[in-house]
C-alpha cells in the first residue's frame, strides 16, 4: 500500500457554493489531529461542477482517487478509512462517466490540480519557463511569429487572429504601450474566465508578460468583473507573489524587460466587454464605445497603442511557447486551431467547465461529455455565445464547433457559454430573455441599438403575452437585420442574433404564439393553464395547501380540479406535486 501524501479540495466559486469550504475546514481539523504529515491543498476548478464538492486523495506514487458530493459528515470516513487505513470509501468514489475522455486540456492544464495561490507550485509545473525562454532567447518578432503560426484566435468571441493583433501594435512607435487583459466576462451563463483566474492566475499573468514583451508594452491592466471577488483576490495574491519574486517589475529575470500589472474592477456593465468601452471605463468614464478606427492597437488606453486580449487567449500563450506552434495547431480545424473552453450548463446532466479541440460536433459535446439531457427529455437546441450568439437546433447537432461552421448557422463560437435546451424550453421566451438583457445593457449611444432593441423586446413581449399580430414576425426579422447592420459596436451588431436564429430554426413556434395563441413548450404564462391529470393524482392534497389563491378544490370525482378563473398560474402546485400529475397545457385546453 502506498501511503497517502496529499488531499486536495476544489475551492473555486462553484465548489464553495456547494459547501466545499466546510469540507475543507473539517478535513483541516481531522488531518491535523490524525495525520499531520498529509498535506491539505486548496485547488481550483477541475470542471466537474455537477459533482462538487470534490476531494482528491493523492498517494505518494502520484495516483489520484476522487470523491464526489463530499459533505462534512463524510470527512471522518475518508480520513480514517482511506488516508489512515488505505482503503478507499467505495460509495463516495467518483465513477468514470466519460466527462474527460474527449477533452484536451491546454488552458485548463493546471486547473483543479495545483494550488492557485502558490507560485512555487506553478513553477514546478513549468510555470514561467516560457517567459524565461522568451526573454533570454527570442526577439519580440519571433514571439509574434510563433503565435501567428499557431493560428491562435481571440477567445473572447471575436475570433480575430491574435498574432495579427500583436503585430499591428508591435509596429507602432510610442514611448508607452499597454497590454490589457479583458476579464469582463459578462455573458450570462459563462464562467470560463472566472475559473481560469481562480484556478491558475499565474498562467494569465505569464501570458500577459509574453504578450507585452512581443508588442513592447511596459504596463498591464487586468479588467475584471466586480462580481468575481474570489478571482480578484487570487489575482492580487499572484501579482504580489510574482512581484516579490522579481517576475514583475524592473529588469525582469535580469533582462531589460520591465512590466507591471494593475487590476481594475469593473462596476457592472456588459458593454464594457467591447474594447473601446472597456478603455473608457478604465479611464474612469461611462463605458460607452466609440467609432473605430483608430483601433486600440494604434490609439487605445490613454491614447497609447494597446492590445486587449481575453483571459483564455492569454492563458494559451505560455503553452504555445513551451510546446511550439505545430503542437498547438495539431488540434482543431483548418482555420480554427487549438482548443476552446466552454461553460456547459442548462438542461444537461454534466454541467461544468470543458475544454475541447476545435471542430468537435455539438452532438458529441452534449451526449458524450455532457452525458445527455437531464431527466432524459428530448434535446431541442444549444445556445452559444450568450446574448450575442444564437440557438442551434438539434437537427444541426452535427455541425462542428469552429469559427466558420458556426457562423454559417447564424450563431457564433462566442466567449464560451453553451446552454443546452430541452423540449420544455420555449424559444420565443429564450429570445425575449436575451433581448431583455441586451436592451437593459445597451449603453444608449447609437440609435439602432438603443431604440431597436427596445422595439424588438416590445414585439417579443407581445408574442409571449398572446397579443402577437400576423405582421410581427416579419417586422421582427426586418428590424433585427437593420440593428445588426447599423449599430455602432459589437453589442448592437450581435444583439439580434438570438432572434434571427430562433425565427429561422423555430419559426413554427413563433407562429403558434401568434396565430394559435399557444406556447408549445408550456412556458409563456399568458398562453398556458395548469391542469391535474386524474390518472396520476393520488389525492395527497399537497397542491391544495400550496395554492396561494385557493384555486384547487375537490372536483366531481375523487381527484382535484383547478379553477382557471381563480388560478394565477404561479406554478407552485406543479413544483410541489410528488407524482408529476400537474402539467401546463395550452389555454385552449388541448395538451
Amino acid at each position, binding site marked *: 500500500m502506498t501511503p497517502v501524501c496529499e488531499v486536495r479540495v476544489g475551492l473555486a*466559486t462553484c465548489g464553495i457554493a*456547494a459547501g466545499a469550504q466546510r469540507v475543507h475546514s473539517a478535513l483541516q481539523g481531522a488531518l491535523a489531529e490524525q495525520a499531520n504529515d498529509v498535506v491539505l491543498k486548496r485547488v481550483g476548478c477541475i470542471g466537474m461542477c455537477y459533482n462538487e464538492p470534490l476531494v482528491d486523495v493523492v498517494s505518494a506514487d502520484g495516483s489520484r482517487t476522487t470523491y464526489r458530493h463530499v459533505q462534512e459528515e463524510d470527512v471522518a470516513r475518508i480520513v480514517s478509512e482511506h488516508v489512515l487505513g488505505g482503503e478507499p470509501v467505495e460509495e463516495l468514489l467518483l465513477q468514470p462517466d466519460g466527462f474527460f475522455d474527449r477533452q484536451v486540456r491546454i488552458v485548463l492544464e493546471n486547473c483543479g490540480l495545483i494550488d492557485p495561490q502558490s507560485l512555487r507550485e506553478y513553477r514546478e509545473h513549468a510555470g514561467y519557463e516560457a517567459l524565461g525562454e522568451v526573454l533570454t532567447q527570442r526577439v519580440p518578432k519571433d514571439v509574434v511569429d510563433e503565435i501567428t503560426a499557431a493560428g491562435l484566435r481571440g477567445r473572447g468571441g471575436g475570433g480575430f487572429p491574435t498574432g495579427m493583433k500583436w503585430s499591428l501594435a508591435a509596429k507602432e512607435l510610442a514611448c508607452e504601450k499597454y497590454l490589457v487583459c479583458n476579464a469582463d466576462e459578462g455573458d450570462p*451563463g*459563462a464562467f470560463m474566465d472566472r475559473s481560469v483566474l481562480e484556478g491558475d492566475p499565474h498562467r494569465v499573468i505569464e501570458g500577459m508578460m509574453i504578450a507585452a514583451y512581443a508588442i513592447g508594452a511596459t504596463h498591464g491592466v487586468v479588467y475584471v468583473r466586480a462580481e468575481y471577488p474570489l478571482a480578484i483576490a487570487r489575482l492580487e495574491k499572484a501579482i504580489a507573489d510574482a512581484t516579490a519574486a522579481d517576475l514583475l517589475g524592473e529588469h525582469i529575470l535580469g533582462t531589460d524587460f520591465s512590466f507591471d500589472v494593475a487590476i481594475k474592477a469593473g462596476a457592472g456593465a456588459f458593454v464594457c466587454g467591447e474594447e473601446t468601452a472597456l478603455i473608457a471605463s478604465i479611464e474612469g468614464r*461611462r463605458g460607452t464605445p466609440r467609432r473605430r478606427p483608430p483601433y486600440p492597437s494604434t490609439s487605445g488606453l490613454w491614447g497609447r497603442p494597446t492590445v486587449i486580449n481575453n483571459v483564455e487567449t492569454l492563458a494559451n500563450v505560455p503553452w504555445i511557447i513551451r510546446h511550439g506552434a505545430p503542437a498547438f495547431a495539431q488540434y482543431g480545424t483548418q482555420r480554427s486551431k487549438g482548443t476552446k473552453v466552454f461553460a456547459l*450548463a442548462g438542461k444537461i446532466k454534466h454541467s461544468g467547465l470543458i475544454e475541447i479541440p476545435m471542430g468537435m460536433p455539438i452532438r458529441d459535446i452534449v451526449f458524450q461529455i455532457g452525458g445527455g439531457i437531464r431527466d432524459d427529455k428530448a434535446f431541442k437546441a444549444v445556445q452559444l455565445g*450568450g446574448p450575442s450568439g444564437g440557438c442551434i437546433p438539434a437537427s444541426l447537432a452535427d455541425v462542428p464547433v469552429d469559427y466558420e461552421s458556426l457562423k454559417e448557422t447564424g450563431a457564433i463560437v462566442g466567449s464560451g457559454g453553451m446552454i443546452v435546451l430541452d423540449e420544455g424550453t420555449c424559444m420565443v421566451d429564450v429570445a425575449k430573455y436575451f433581448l431583455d438583457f441586451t436592451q437593459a445593457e445597451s449603453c444608449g449611444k447609437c440609435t439602432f441599438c438603443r431604440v431597436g432593441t427596445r422595439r424588438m423586446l416590445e414585439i417579443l413581449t407581445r408574442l409571449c403575452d398572446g397579443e402577437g399580430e400576423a405582421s410581427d414576425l416579419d417586422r421582427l426579422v426586418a428590424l433585427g437585420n437593420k440593428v445588426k447592420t447599423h449599430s455602432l459596436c459589437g453589442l448592437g451588431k450581435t444583439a439580434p442574433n438570438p432572434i434571427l436564429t430562433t425565427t429561422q430554426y423555430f419559426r413554427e413556434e413563433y407562429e403558434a404564439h401568434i396565430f394559435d395563441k399557444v406556447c408549445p413548450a408550456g412556458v409563456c404564462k399568458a398562453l398556458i393553464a395548469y391542469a391535474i391529470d386524474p390518472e396520476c393524482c393520488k389525492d395527497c392534497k399537497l397542491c391544495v395547501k400550496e395554492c396561494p389563491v385557493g384555486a384547487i378544490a375537490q372536483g366531481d370525482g375523487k381527484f382535484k380540479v383547478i379553477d382557471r378563473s381563480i388560478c394565477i398560474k404561479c406554478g407552485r402546485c406543479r413544483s410541489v406535486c410528488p407524482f408529476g400529475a400537474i402539467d401546463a397545457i395550452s389555454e385552449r385546453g388541448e395538451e
Partner: protein
Amino acid sequence: MVVASLPHRSTEETDAIEEILRDCPASPAGVIPLLQKMQQRFGYVSETTLTRVSEYSRVPLSSIYGVATFYSQFRLTRPGKHTIRVCLGTACHVLGAGEILDYLKERLEIVEGETTKDQLFSLEPVRCLGCCSLAPVMMIDDETYGRLTRKALDDILASYGADAPS
C-alpha cells in the same frame, strides 16, 4: 436625484469620506475605484459622497452622477442589512429563476431594487453569478445558495431572521 438625506450622520459620514480619500489619488481615472470604496464603506453612494468625490477628483458632479448611474454596481439609496442577489443568468433562467424571484418578491413584499420595511433585506437581480451548475442560484451577502426551491428559500430566509411565511 433620489438620495436618502440623513443630516445627523453628516459629520460622521464626512469624516469617513475624508479618511477614504486620503489613500486615493485625485484623478479622473480614480473615480470608479473611489466610488467602489465609498460604496463598500457605506453600502451606497450618497449625494454627499458624490459631491465630495466630484470636488476631490476635479470632475463635474454631472459626470460623476453619470458614472454612478451607468454602472449597475452603484446604489444611490441605502440598502438593507442583507443584500439578496438573485441570479438571472441563462442557466438559472431556463431552470426557473423567474419563479424564485417572484416568490422572493412575494415573501419580502418588495420589488427589485427595493428594501424591506424592516430594513432587513434588499433585493437585487444580477445577470450571472457564474455558478451555473448550481442553478437556480442566489447570494445573500457573501454566501451562495444553489439549487433553490421555494422550500429552501423559506429555510434560508428564516436563518436570516425573516418571519415565517404567512
